[in-house]
């Protein structure tokens, strides 16, 4: 596993080993192994509590229109020549929402043709198509929810500045849960 730090802390040794494998498989399935650099999981079925704390690697920057397409503006006619198809669906959805379907034409697979006023076409290269950090948060929380025991429905989660935590329990979470989270960050040599 390509983590810089990966520990599963559990009072039941066998259960802990299973959760280590389980966490590895789930993160691999969700393509998150490359994204996470440090991960510490505490699971204590006696309390019961599940705490996952971690640090993500530096994420790729948001993808802008200018990154995936060459923009050519001739008066009111704006031509986007698509270089990377990966984000084309997201780009089209964004353009439809912003300018309306009737003004966005796609005569062939790699060309998008639009009729825009000069005001509208200004700064079109800078429009953000997708932001990896947005989907990452959703994916990360979904994966951790899958790893945590199913009965642990009461949960609290956070992601920001490259750090995340996910706390879940079957009972009400204690008020001082952040103290425990900070302790786990300290074990990884990090702080929240």
């Amino acid at each position: 596993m390509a983590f810089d730090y990966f520990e599963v802390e559990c009072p039941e040794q066998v259960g802990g080993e299973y959760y280590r494998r389980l966490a590895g498989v789930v993160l691999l399935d969700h393509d998150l192994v490359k994204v996470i650099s440090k991960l510490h999981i505490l699971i204590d079925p006696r309390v019961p509590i599940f705490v996952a704390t971690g640090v993500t690697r530096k994420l790729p920057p948001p993808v802008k229109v200018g990154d995936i397409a060459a923009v050519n503006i001739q008066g009111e006619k704006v031509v986007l020549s698509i270089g990377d198809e990966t984000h084309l669906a997201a780009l089209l959805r964004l353009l439809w929402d912003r300018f309306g379907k009737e003004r966005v034409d796609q005569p062939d697979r790699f060309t998008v043709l639009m009729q825009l006023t000069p005001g509208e076409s200004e700064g079109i290269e800078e429009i953000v198509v997708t932001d990896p950090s947005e989907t990452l948060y959703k994916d990360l929380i979904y994966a951790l929810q899958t790893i945590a025991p199913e009965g642990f429905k009461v949960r609290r989660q956070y992601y920001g500045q490259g750090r995340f935590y996910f706390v879940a329990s079957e009972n009400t979470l204690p008020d001082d849960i952040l103290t425990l989270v900070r302790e786990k960050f300290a074990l990884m040599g990090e702080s929240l």
Partner: protein
Amino acid sequence: MILVPITYKGGIYRHDEVVDLIEDLGGYIIQKHAIAGEIVIQALVPRDDIELIRRVGKPLMGDVTPAPLVGTEIAVVSMSLEIHHLPHASCDIAEYIRRNGAKTNMVGLARGFGKRVAQLNDEERDVINEHDLAIYMLGNFGTCIEQKFPVLRRGIDIPIVVCGGPDKETLQKIIDPPVDGYVGNVGRFMHRTKEAEELTKLDEIVAEVTSVLDHRREEIAKDPLSVSPARLMEVIEEQVPDIGDVTSPTPITVQIAGLRVKLPYDTFADQVKAAGIEGGITVGDVADVLPSRMRDYILVRIKPFSETNIVV
């Protein structure tokens, strides 16, 4: 005549000769399905004639293997039908047991998860009790199993095999009163079972289930059933023609001591009860015909000889 369960796998070409042979020998076809160019027949056949079937099947690329679970219906009880438990491990185990001849049904509990909140409702209890055996797929922690299992087994009167994360000895220690079978080191996991070690574990589950069911069969043999379930299946197939319109893979599911007939109870129960077996004896004389809690099916529970004084 002692009937033993077998699986016949062979080419589709001339497979009807094998079917005819099994029927002529006094055996029963429990299930027959064709996959691409191959046919898989699960049957109960006379023990002395297995060699003959093997010999007839050989030129047709057929192979006969013993399948101890043929003629049984097993409930695989999953703690929920969420991504946490499906498709691995519940489906992997259900599918593997099915390959060994059993008819498995997955019972996903509405509230099986959690240590404190786990519970079993009356419908789940009744549906599980309609099977020959229940395999409980529990989690990875002994603490949770110890606390929640007594709730999940409440009212279950069929044999139970428990699969859980802790090893077999720990499971035996924490489950009180004991259940019929234990398989340790099979808790919640989320990857496909394909490594040799994992397949050995699946074989271990099959072995444990087989041994529990063998024990059950021995108990039934002490007070034999009034009629064999496989024979009763044939009687119903002949006398209730509507069963031919059922699209389910097994319109009649054979159990160790009964049958599940997949026809609506209200419409067909009387017809099933009135079906004649031999010499004026009807299904109603030797079996209880009950409404099943699984959809609107009919559940036929065969009475033992001590109750009816009839053996047909």
